[in-house]
């Protein structure tokens, strides 16, 4: 960078080079940006391509006669490798899809196992409750039998009570008739 004290010759060179570059490019653009140049370049490209094609064909013919491999042969081999690579890739994709489906199935299985565990737990609980209920039922049966027995006894007791009442009534009756006979005996 130039200042009052120091001088940088390359700054000037750079500034001039920018200017020259722009001028040269503008000049090239002026020379080439027209139909004539386009036609000429098209002719040149066409000629170049034709020569290249002819040269390639001759080379292929010569290489074929001498049994030399050419770039086309290498290309064919490379394409075979690429085909194998694509098949491998397709297989990889399929394996990956399979892995994904296995993963999702595993998840489903896991959730089913979880549900099954819950069911087993619930069944065990129910079983315990069932045993309990059975026990209670047998106890209730015993109670029922006892109650029946009690009922029977009560019936018996009732019968006894009735008998007792009858006896009581008879005794009473007897008591009421007994003094009459005593009186009669005294009169005699």
């Amino acid at each position, binding site marked *: 960078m*130039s*200042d*009052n*004290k*120091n*001088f*940088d*010759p*390359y*700054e000037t*060179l*750079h500034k001039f*080079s*920018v200017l020259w*570059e*722009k001028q*040269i*490019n503008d000049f*090239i*653009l002026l020379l*080439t*940006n*027209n*139909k004539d*140049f*386009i*036609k000429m*370049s*098209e002719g040149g*490209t*066409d000629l*170049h*391509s*034709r020569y*290249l*094609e002819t040269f*390639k064909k001759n080379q292929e013919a010569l290489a074929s006669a001498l049994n030399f491999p050419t*770039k086309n042969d*290498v*290309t064919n081999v*490379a*394409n075979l490798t*690429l085909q194998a*690579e*694509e098949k491998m*890739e397709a297989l990889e*994709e399929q394996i*990956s899809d399979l892995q994904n489906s296995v993963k999702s199935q595993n998840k489903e299985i896991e959730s089913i196992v979880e549900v099954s565990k819950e069911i087993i737990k619930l069944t065990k609980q129910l079983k315990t409750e069932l045993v309990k209920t059975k026990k209670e039922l047998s106890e209730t049966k015993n109670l029922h039998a006892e109650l029946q027995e009690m009922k029977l006894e009560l019936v018996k007791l009732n019968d006894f009570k009735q008998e007792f009442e009858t006896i009581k009534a008879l005794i009473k009756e007897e008591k009421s008739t007994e003094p009459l006979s005593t009186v009669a005996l005294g009169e005699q």
Partner: protein
Amino acid sequence: MAADSPLTEFMADLDYDKEMRRWANLFKVLSEPEPKTGITPRDEIWRKNKSVLWHYPAKQKKYEIPLFFVYSLFNKPYILDIAPKVSVIETLTNMGYEVYLLDWGSPGYEDKQNGIDTYIEKYLQTAVKRAIRHSGAPEITLIGYCIGGTIASIYTSIAEEPIKNLIVATVPIDFEPFMGPDKWAEGLREGDINLEGFIDAYGIIPPKLVEGMFRTIGSPIYFTNYTNLLYRAHDPNYVDKWRRMNKWTLDQVPLAGEAYRQLANDFFKENKLVKGEWMVGNKRVDLKNINANLFVVSGSRDNLVHEDQSKPIMDLVSSQDKTYITVETGHVSLALTGLLAKIVHQWVSSRSNPL
């Protein structure tokens, strides 16, 4: 240090320290090995033919949706990871994004039949699937640069994969406007220039011819990069940047013949993409099918892709969330300076499911 001279009054002094630094740095340019590019750690996820899908893990993952870079077919993608601190990919991984990059590789003669449609159907689609599977994310963000943006847009319009965001930078969509000489464009469109024989003869377009094609559009004669180096060689940072840029510029890749034919005939000559007449396999490419959130970046100093070539995508897509910005930058400097990472982060961070 300054030398005494009888002409001191008339002529300014040379800064000798600066001159020493200048020539020492220039000597380094000529003698030292080329600077190392591609500095961010990465893993290979998938490989097919010459194409490789790279994964750059996030330093500390902060976003669920990964970024997937689709670069141009004309150059090597290491411009996105050119140097520490300015690397687009390094910046994004440091910000917490998982980044994927599809490197198309250098096609050989056996790939001459590879068209843009082949690259989309057989390479990009599988690579996106693999990236989604690898990341475990429900969706993905595509970032297309230059013609990679065109490819990403075409793919998004036919994709069955879940594309959440589409970001395209310096992207040609409408091929009607042309940055080069107008008579050449006219000649190509009217059939005065026929490239069929040329493409058939070469099979793949050699890198030097690809470079020449771009030079012809921009500036056929180009030497100011060397005078600029000479002028600023005293600054080691500039010299380092220049060397990396120079390495990348000269490191071109060949272009598959069929892809070149499609670009020249279908896109440039007949503008089939904008008209919705282009086909990928049995699917018609209609940009209206794009519903992903869209972000378009153009460079105001871009001398290869004009803003008028990018803007039409805004009206062609069906996206509800779409943003267009123009930044004060050139075609390559957007990636070279790392500016792209900052711009992308500003837009995509809120659309990437922050964790």
